[in-house]
């Protein structure tokens, strides 16, 4: 097979990878399939940074480094051109085409991805993983799990509801509901507090295509930076031969703009994503992909040592700043983590992959915004009003690829305290209005309920003495699962809330 044949195969591999990525997200948490974190096992950036920050070697992360770096050592940035689902989406997004050909209008920007990489790795050495939210796989996983898929679920359900009202359309609805609801489609609509923001970030990355094709991959992607550095010594590379007639077609076809007429149409292996788009357009077989064993030459846009030092210094400064932020010393009242994930070391172990967000059956785990401070933006936090921690579930710990959320047995998880419930007696129906309610007590899943009821004589607003049954939280029993807050029948804010334990 020559490069042209491989070029014909590539879109299908890309399609398969995107479909697999989607299926893994949709299926995550629904029984045995491939591991939900499969793509992260080939993402060496989260792997490397994750192990540096946690100061320990984790199987899933080690695999990702060996697999990801190994692949780049042999085939260059083939991950970017063939497998990365975000890269594929960028290929599918229309991009700017110019009449006057100009391979790369912003060459100096290419160093941004390396500097971002340096920042992430230096920060990781100091225990900080905040900017892993810019890793393309975490970015896309979060966007699909908390924005795209829930929106799709809503649309499908709305369509079903409309169809169900029409008698002759009930058949297809019944089919979907019987076969997909509860397995592929969640029984209850998942809600996410930041879905619009998360979606806008993805849209923004795609929209950069309007400036140049694969803008993200050329200039910004920190994973692309890591794979690019390794690819400078990769085994298989594109070379230009003497039979090149300088027809410029390859340069026009190149989505990363790395084929440079000024350098005799040579390309930089650190920028080449091995997409092979140049192969079929080459008029005279003036190029080939061959094994090469010497490192690629330095180019003008490659970051200087001074720039690397500046990125490192910025990382040190940022870590210092985050260490002195409010959240570092005075945790937010609502910083409720997944079971067993308590403690400051959690943020040094969480690679922000977002798998726990998807496997949480109630969608209670949400990407945080304010609760975990700047350093914990988009790390998982439980929002009990949106979803409770299910007493019959320990999925997040089982799915977490780094052990940041420990793998607890169901028995242990049921004993793990993640917060404590407090009643707001100004809003609670029996407390504030003297009427009975007690849903929280009904919902409390503990064998010895953490919410107890007491019959009390009170003076009603009209002056009469009435007996009302009021709930109390027995704090030492409460594990903070939040089902009381989730099911509190008040509109808006619940009258019982889980707060940081």
């Amino acid at each position, binding site marked *: 097979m020559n490069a042209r044949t491989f070029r014909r195969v590539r879109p299908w591999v890309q399609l398969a990878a995107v479909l697999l990525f989607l299926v893994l997200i949709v299926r995550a948490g629904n029984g045995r399939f491939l591991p939900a974190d499969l793509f992260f096992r080939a993402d060496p950036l989260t792997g490397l940074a994750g192990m540096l920050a946690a100061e320990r070697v984790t199987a899933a992360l080690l695999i990702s480094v060996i697999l990801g770096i190994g692949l780049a050592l042999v085939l260059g940035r083939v991950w970017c051109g063939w497998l990365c689902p975000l890269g594929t989406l960028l290929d599918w997004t229309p991009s700017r085409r110019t009449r006057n050909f100009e391979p790369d209008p912003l060459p100096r920007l290419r160093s941004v991805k390396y500097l971002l990489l340096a920042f992430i790795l230096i920060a990781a050495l100091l225990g900080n993983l905040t900017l892993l939210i810019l890793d393309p796989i975490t970015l896309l996983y979060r966007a699909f799990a908390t924005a795209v898929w829930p929106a799709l679920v809503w649309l499908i359900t709305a369509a079903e509801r409309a169809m*169900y*009202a029409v008698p002759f359309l009930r058949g297809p609805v019944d089919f979907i509901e019987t076969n997909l609801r509860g397995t592929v489609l969640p029984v209850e609509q998942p809600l996410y507090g930041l879905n619009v923001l998360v979606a806008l970030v993805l849209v923004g990355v795609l929209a950069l295509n309007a400036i140049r094709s694969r803008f993200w991959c050329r200039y910004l992607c920190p994973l692309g930076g890591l794979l690019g550095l390794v690819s400078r010594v990769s085994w298989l590379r594109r070379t230009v031969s003497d039979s090149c007639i300088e027809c410029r077609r390859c340069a026009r076809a190149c989505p990363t703009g790395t084929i440079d007429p000024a350098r005799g149409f040579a390309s930089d292996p650190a920028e080449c994503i091995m997409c092979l788009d140049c192969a079929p357009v080459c008029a005279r077989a003036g190029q080939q992909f061959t094994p090469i064993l010497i490192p690629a030459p330095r180019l003008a846009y490659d970051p200087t040592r001074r720039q690397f030092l500046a990125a490192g210094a910025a990382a040190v400064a940022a870590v210092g700043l985050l260490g002195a932020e409010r959240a570092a010393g005075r945790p937010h009242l609502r910083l409720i983590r997944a079971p067993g994930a308590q403690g400051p070391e959690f943020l040094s172990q969480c690679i922000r992959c977002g798998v726990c967000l998807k496997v949480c059956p109630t969608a209670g785990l949400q990407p945080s915004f304010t609760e975990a401070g700047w350093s914990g933006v988009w790390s998982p936090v439980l929002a009990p009003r949106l979803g409770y921690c299910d007493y*019959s579930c320990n999925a997040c710990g089982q799915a977490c690829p780094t052990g940041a959320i420990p793998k607890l047995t169901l028995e242990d998880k049921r004993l793990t305290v993640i917060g404590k419930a407090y009643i707001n007696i100004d809003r609670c129906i029996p407390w504030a209005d003297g009427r009975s309610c*007690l849903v929280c007590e009904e919902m409390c899943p503990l064998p010895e*309920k953490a919410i107890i009821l007491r019959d009390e004589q009170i003076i009603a607003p009209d002056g009469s003495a009435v007996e009302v049954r009021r709930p109390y939280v027995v704090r030492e029993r409460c594990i903070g699962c939040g089902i009381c807050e989730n099911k509190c029948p008040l509109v808006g804010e619940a009258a019982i809330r889980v707060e940081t334990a």
Partner: protein
Amino acid sequence: MIRHFDRRAFLKQVFVASAAGATLGLAGCRSQPASQAANSVPSGSGAVTESPTTLPAIPAGSAYLAVARGAIDAGELTRRAIAAVGGIERFVKPGATVIVKPNICNAYHGPEYASTTNPDVVAAIVALCKAAGAQSVRVMDFPFGGSPQAGYKMSGIADAVAAAGGDMEVMSGVKYREVPITGGKAIQKWEVYGEILDSDVVINVPIAKQHGSAGLTLGMKNLMGIIQNRNGFHARGLHQCIADLSTTVRPQLTVIDAVRILTANGPTGGNLDDVKRLDTVIASADIVAADAYATTLFDLRPEDIPYIRLGSEMGIGQMDLKVIKIEEIAA
């Protein structure tokens, strides 16, 4: 330009077609409650009836309410209790569609914790219905804690029902529809699971449990599993709403599982010390009478549970155990 025109024309067609579909749908919606009522009035069959006071006639020789007791298989207790109230054939005609509604309120514990209906009781009912020629027997509930599938599995009901030839159904959010609650005092209309409304026969199979806000959860309370907006019940007064719902959704048969009862920390349970083994199954076509009898298992009186008293006052059924024919079967 031509391409644009085509696209526009296509969109127009789609819009017209979907508008027509929506109109049809709305029309369908509006006509349904009426046809429902028309179907159910003459025979008294169907889960929905207009008049709250009508109870099906009791065949000669049958009991109004039966209680089977004894340290034998729970399925056998169930069969004996149902036989004493006229046999399953009284309720399930050949070709009927049947829904069995157990209490699977959460996915937390196995059946030995008595927070979910005994799987052997449910399986025995499914098998009886199949033997009576039911076209389909579906079993469903909507747990408040944990996913339906997890609850179905944990309760042991999924396996037992599959072995008995029935189907578990995940209650789908798209299948609820608003029905008038005729005779309702706190509520006049409510969204109810459509399949329950459309099924020929509904068999209500609660487990008898202590419950903080309801006192006890029994047959009438178990029907809260077929509505989605449960908060609305709490806001409008739980007991009156439960009674109101029972005026409209009327299971043909209520079988109360008291093989094990939960005496404290209900309805969720989780502590074996709160479980009391009674080896008892109650059956009656009268949901109020069945509930009334079940209160005695907890050393309470029917009038101690407000929804039972309200149900009796509204004519849904009889809570005075002295005026009905009760057959007690001891193993």
